[in-house]
């Protein structure tokens, strides 16, 4: 069981209704965590269209959750 802060941006924030939330999860990795949150919030974007970041740096979907860590799911970007 890990407690993490999850940040939501753009359409993920609109769907979740919050900019961030604290989550307790037993997910083995970030991929599984996204699947849980996608199911809870009804995110339209599949994981393969996102990137994931942990503690302010890009991370791998197979990375484990760090207790107290900060996770961000990065939807396709549209700057410029």
């Amino acid at each position, binding site marked *: 069981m890990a407690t993490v802060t999850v940040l939501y941006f*753009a359409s993920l924030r609109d769907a979740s209704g919050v900019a961030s939330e604290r989550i307790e999860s037993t997910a083995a990795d970030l991929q599984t965590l996204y699947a849980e949150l996608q199911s809870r919030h009804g995110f339209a974007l599949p994981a393969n*269209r996102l990137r994931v970041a942990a503690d302010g740096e*890009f991370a791998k979907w197979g990375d484990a959750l760090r207790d107290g860590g900060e996770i*961000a799911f990065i939807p*396709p*970007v*549209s*700057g*410029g």
Partner: protein
Amino acid sequence: MKRFHLSEVPIQIAPLRDQLSHPTAGAFASFEGWVRDHNDGRAVDGLRYEAYLALAEKEGERVLQEAMDKFAIVDARCVHRIGDLAIGDLAVWVGVSAAHRGAAFDACRYIIDEVKSRVPIWKHERYREGDPGWLHPEPDTAKE
């Protein structure tokens, strides 16, 4: 030194350009992204950019450093607006100085291409008709 910046206020071009001048620099290439009045056939009234600030600044800085390493340039800068913008507003500015123009053009193009494809910034468009929405382009449609 920071070469990439996010700005909540209108971008001032002249001081950015002046930072890139150098006696050995004979060429300067720049790119500006302006807010258009249409996108994908829909009339646009205005837009808003949001960023994952901490990561956007790191990733933007990496793009600029890559350009410094890959091309024979003297210096480079990029500033991207966040917040609310109106039609015609400057959304992003890239400037590159170099001894010769080939490297200046190539690096400028590299920087805007990479910033648009990698830096966590999102555009929210308000349309003249219909609901506003976030743009989450497919990789092969992110061409403008």
